[in-house]
C-alpha cells in the first residue's frame, strides 16, 4: 500500500511501486484533471506538486510519492472559488484546446507561491517545461504575470520538500 495526501485528502492505493504517479492519480484515485501528453518528461501536461514542488508525474514512480503531499489541478480551487491564476486564464484567454492547461495552472501556482509578481522573463523560465500548441504562449504569460496583480484572495502555501 502506498499512502499520500491528494489535495488534502488521505489516499491509500494498492499499486506496483514503480507505477507512474500519473497513472495512479488518473486510474487509482480517479483524478483525471492531470493529463498525459508525451509520457517522457517533455511536455509538462502531467505536472503536479509534490510537497509544493512542480514535477512531471509521468516520471515519478508511485513509491516516491509515499508519505508526500500531492496537489493536482483539482486542488487549486478553494471553497468553490477558482485560484486567481485560473481566473486569469479565463480573463486573458490562456486556454484553447485545454489539454495543456492543467499542467500550466499547476506549474504557475508553484511559481506564484514562490514569487507572487513574476516578470515576463521569470514566468517564461518557470513555464519552459510546459508546451502549448494553440495559444502561442502570450496569453498564458499575460495570465500568469497578471494573476496576482489585483489584491489577492488567500493563495496556497509554499513548501520546500523533504520527499
Amino acid at each position, binding site marked *: 500500500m502506498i499512502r499520500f495526501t491528494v489535495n488534502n485528502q488521505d489516499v491509500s492505493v494498492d499499486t506496483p511501486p514503480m507505477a507512474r504517479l500519473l497513472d495512479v492519480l488518473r486510474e487509482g484515485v480517479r483524478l483525471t484533471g492531470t493529463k498525459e501528453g508525451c509520457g*517522457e518528461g517533455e511536455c509538462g501536461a502531467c*505536472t503536479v506538486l509534490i510537497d509544493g514542488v512542480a514535477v*512531471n508525474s509521468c*516520471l515519478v514512480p508511485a*513509491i516516491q510519492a509515499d508519505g508526500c503531499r500531492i496537489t493536482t489541478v483539482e486542488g487549486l480551487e478553494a471553497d468553490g472559488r477558482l485560484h486567481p491564476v485560473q481566473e486569469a486564464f479565463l480573463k486573458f484567454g490562456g486556454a484553447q484546446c485545454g489539454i495543456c492547461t492543467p499542467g500550466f495552472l499547476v506549474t504557475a501556482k508553484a511559481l506564484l507561491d514562490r514569487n507572487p509578481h513574476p516578470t515576463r522573463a521569470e514566468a517564461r523560465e518557470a513555464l*519552459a517545461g510546459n508546451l502549448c500548441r494553440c495559444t502561442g504562449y502570450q496569453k498564458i504569460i499575460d495570465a500568469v504575470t497578471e494573476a496576482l496583480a489585483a489584491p489577492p484572495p488567500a493563495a496556497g502555501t509554499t513548501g520546500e520538500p523533504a*520527499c
Partner: protein
Amino acid sequence: MLTCTAPVHRVSTLAEALAQRAAHPDATVLAGGTDLMVFLELGSVNPPAILDLWGCTELRGISEDGHTLGALSTWTDVARHPALPAALRDCARTVGAPQIQNRGTIGGNIVNASPAGDSLPMWLAMDAQFELASVRGVRQVPASAFWLGYRKTALAADELLTRVHLRPHADDRLHYRKVGTRLAQAISKVVLGARLRVVDGVVTEARVALGSVAPTPIRAHHVEAALVGRPLDAAAADAVAHDIAPIDDIRSTADYRRTVAANVIRAWLRDEAARSPDR
C-alpha cells in the same frame, strides 16, 4: 502505462543504501528517475529490482561553502545555492526545464554518463572529485578518470556515487555554454565547460572540456596546451580540430559540431581577454 513490476528496495540512510547495494548488485539504482523512468517507459531496460535512494536525505544537499555536493542534490538545489560558481548554477538552469530540475539529480547525470550530459564538462573543468562508496570503503575518483567509454563509468557493481567535491581557486574563472535547439528541454549539440587562471598576464592553468562531440565528455588537451604559458590568445581555439572527431547524428552533423566547438571556445576566450586586458 508503465508495466515495470520490479520490487523496490527503499533506503533512508547511507549505511542501509550501501548494504542494499552489496546485497543486490543486479538492482538498478533510482535517484530522481528523470533518466531511468524514460528508459523503463521505452522498455530499453528491464531491471530485476530497483534500489530507491531518494529517501536517503544524507546524500541530499550542498555544504554552505559549496565545496561538497551530495549526489542526490537536484539541479534546483544547485541553481539556488549562493556559494556555487555562477557558471555551474547557469548549467543547472539549462538541464531540461524546471520540473526536470526539481527532480533530476547531479548523481543521476554523472552516472547516467550520456555524452550529452550537460554537467559533465563542468565537472571536468572544475577538476571535481567523485566520492564512490561501497561496503568495502570509500574512494575518490577524479572526473577525468570516471567516464571510460560510451555510457561506461568507473563505478563498480557494489558502489554508489555519494558526493562530489570541489576545490575552487579564487583566481579561477569558470565558463559554461550550451548549444541546443532551444533554451529549455534541448539535448545539446555542443556543451562547453571551461576554466582559466591568468597570473600577471600569462595563462597558468586552463581546462577546456566538451560534451556531445565524442562518446564521452572530453578534455580538449590541444587547446589547453596552446593556452598555458602564454598571454591569452583566442587563436588557441583552432587547436580543437586536433581534439575532437565528432559524428553525424539526428541532432547535428560532424561538420557543425567541429565548427561550433571552435566558435564557442573562441567566443569565450575573446570575452575573457576583453574582461581583463591587462592580466
